[in-house]
């Protein structure tokens, strides 16, 4: 186990290093002079010089990279160019929207996707199964931002029961804040729920064919008991893996959905930062999001190694 852990930790470290290097190279080294990118070609020479000093462009690139990475460990990412505030403060503020949104979406998609998948598998080829699979096909085909627009049309424009966008803020109370996150969370959760239902269904079906499930039935366990005690629990391993892989789609979705609903989260921040050519913020948020994807997949890897000792061997065949 410790060898496995060490291998995975090294891989995690290398991946994070690679991702941060790529972001740094693309956004800071490739453009030549980031200051010109941020201010535009017609910028005054003295404001260019001031920005170059702020960015530390007089130092060689590798030094700037190390300073930047070190800043991550110290929680000091410098100041945003457009907002003139510490980047870390802006990011933490925006996380207060994005994190609850992502959590709501994951909870919702799990609450919908898992039971649907188990239900469809338990009643294979029934009307229930066919309906669930129909939901899955449509769910993965609907672009989440279009689904969001349809929900705004229905709940905000016609019924007028939900806000069409914007964020009430946590200071306005928990319910108004949560209320402004409901439609976005549903929009994010739908495709995830569909994929989860599909994976859960085929995973449960596969496990139900295993000998130990047949043995359990032969011992006199009812179908329902065999399903819950043996099949569902064992079927969860691939499901957890898929949830980890889906996390990157969820993040991508957040960027789009926050823009549909004008939510002041990380996704909207990164988008505004591009419009304002604030390379400092773009760089930090991209690395944060990419790092989150890598970390979540690492945790998923580790957790299913804990669940299933067979997977702790080499990295092959995965």
């Amino acid at each position, binding site marked *: 186990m410790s060898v496995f852990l060490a291998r995975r930790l090294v*891989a995690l470290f*290398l*991946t994070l290093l*690679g*991702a941060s290097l*790529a*972001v740094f190279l*693309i*956004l800071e080294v*490739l*453009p030549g002079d980031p200051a010109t*990118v941020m201010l535009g070609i017609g910028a005054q020479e003295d404001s260019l010089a001031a920005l170059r000093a702020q960015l530390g462009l007089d130092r060689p690139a590798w030094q700037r990279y190390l300073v930047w990475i070190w800043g991550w460990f110290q929680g000091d990412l410098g100041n945003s160019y457009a907002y003139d505030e510490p980047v870390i403060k802006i990011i933490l503020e925006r996380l207060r929207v994005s994190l609850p949104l992502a959590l709501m979406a994951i909870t919702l998609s799990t609450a919908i996707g898992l039971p649907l998948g188990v239900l469809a598998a338990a009643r294979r080829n029934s009307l229930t199964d066919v309906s669930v699979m129909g939901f899955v*096909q*449509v769910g*993965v*085909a*609907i*672009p989440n*931002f*279009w689904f969001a*627009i*349809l929900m*705004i*049309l229905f709940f905000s*424009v016609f019924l007028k029961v939900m806000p069409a966008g914007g964020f009430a803020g946590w200071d306005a109370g928990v319910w108004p804040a949560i209320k402004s996150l409901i439609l976005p969370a549903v929009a994010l959760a739908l495709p995830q729920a569909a994929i989860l239902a599909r994976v859960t269904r*085929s995973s449960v*079906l*596969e496990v139900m064919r295993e000998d130990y499930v047949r043995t359990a039935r032969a011992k006199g366990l009812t179908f329902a008991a065999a399903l819950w005690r043996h099949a569902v629990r064992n079927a969860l391993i*691939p499901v957890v893996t*898929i949830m980890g*892989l889906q996390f*990157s*789609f969820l*993040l*991508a979705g957040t*960027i*789009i959905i926050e*823009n*549909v609903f004008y939510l002041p989260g990380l996704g909207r921040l*990164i*988008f505004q*930062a*591009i419009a304002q*050519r604030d*390379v400092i913020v*773009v760089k930090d948020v*991209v690395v944060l*999001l*990419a*790092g989150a*994807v*890598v970390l979540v*997949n690492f945790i998923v890897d580790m957790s299913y190694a804990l669940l299933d000792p067979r997977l702790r061997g080499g*990295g*092959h*065949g995965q």
Partner: protein
Amino acid sequence: MASDGASDGASDGAKEGGLGEVAAKALGNRSFVIGGVLTGVLIVVALVSLVWTPYSVIDMDIAGKLRVPSAAHWFGTDQFGRDVFSMMMVGAQNSIAVSLVAVGVGAGFGVPLGALAAARGGWLDETVMRFNDFAFAFPAVLSAVMITALAGPGAVNSIIAIGIFNIPVFARLTRGGALAIWKREFVMAARVAGKNAVRITVEHILPNVASILIVQATIQFALAILAEAGLSYLGLGTQPPQPSWGKMLNEAQTLMFLAPQLAIFPGVAIVLTVLGLNLLGDGLRDVLDPRLRRLR
């Protein structure tokens, strides 16, 4: 994401019957037929839009703006009086072009990388897989954000962004499939006969993983359509005046109170396209790879 089951079953399913038998099986497969028809219609519409659309998609007619659907304008007109049906025809062409090239980029880099990793093993394999992990950390939207911050928005940039995200998908799948084939007896025989790794890969490995790759390409094509729509919705992809479904939805959202119908048609087009490609992929899998069907 390729399970071992998928790679094991990839070998010779299609070869058992002749081509005619495969075709017969395909026509009897409901997913394949429905998906094929939907995809076929999309391709025809896109091709027709290259030479003809009912109205120009560039010329504006402010007097005739925001018309509801009628015999003259099947899907109505937008805020500049442009014919929505014509714009959607050109949008189809745009979606197909961007997604096709993006998936091509993904497969073009991913398949050789995966085949190389499987053939050589060792540190090379490890390096390719690490590169995969790291490329996987950048969903298309995130790459697009970086590229846009650097070079401004545009269709080419969204192709690159979606393509980059596709590379690890194809690399992983090819590697998984190829590893299983390398252990087979006929590959052993080829090695004994003195063929080198490149020749074995081209002559034996790739033909045997082709069916899973084709199925995956169909699914990635569907994902690319969704990604392209998302990027152009955000304004990071295809730029006006070239119509794109995502951009049309973005504009429709601002007009939601005035002309809600504008928010319907492009969305339906995206759903039907993606649904068609996914069904086609499912059908192809059943047809090319009978051993996987028992799971479904």
